């Protein structure tokens, strides 16, 4: 069964949220999902771009009040 981990990177500046995501991806199992909370606007484009480049999977991006929720699934 897949697990969802959460990273609260609100307040961190580029490339902090991406780096936190990558560090967490090293620790979880294939199929697990990671939800990143980021207030860095660049994360909304940077994280999906990175996920596509290194061949993981985007689950979704949701805008909240002052931050975004970006969910990624580990694919390899």
């Amino acid at each position, binding site marked *: 069964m897949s697990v969802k981990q959460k990273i609260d990177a609100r307040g961190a500046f580029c490339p902090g949220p991406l*780096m936190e995501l990558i560090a967490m991806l090293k620790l979880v199992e294939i199929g697990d999902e990671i939800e990143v909370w980021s207030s860095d606007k660049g994360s909304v484009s940077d994280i999906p771009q990175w996920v596509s*480049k290194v061949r993981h999977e985007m689950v979704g991006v949701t805008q909240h009040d002052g931050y975004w929720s970006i969910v990624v699934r580990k694919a390899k």
Partner: protein
Amino acid sequence: MASNPLYIMLCSGEHEKLQMAAMMASVGAVSERPVEVFISMNAILAFAKGAPADTRYQGGAFSKLLKENHAPDAMTLFRQGKELGDLKLWACSMALDVKGWELNALTDGLFDGAMGLTKFLSDAENGQFVTL
């Protein structure tokens, strides 16, 4: 599949340029792109082992903002790039000689060794080259 390697020649000791070099190097390395950074001139001074942040990072108006807003520390970004990707840092052998330093004068855990300019330029012929 690995991307075209990125070679960064970092000569400036300005905080803003150190920060951008660290961002480029770390993000490039974690994006499955081999990255090598050659550090010389004033930039090598910022890598002195044990230097406090207020003397390590000197710059202009944006440096002040980076500090006030607690932007990621450049040394931490370089370290993350090495831990999570294919990132190598080389100390310019000339800069070390002029300063009278050995590699152990530099921040631990960042450098892969000393290198001459000729070797770095030769290696960089195979990738994208950026100077800061």
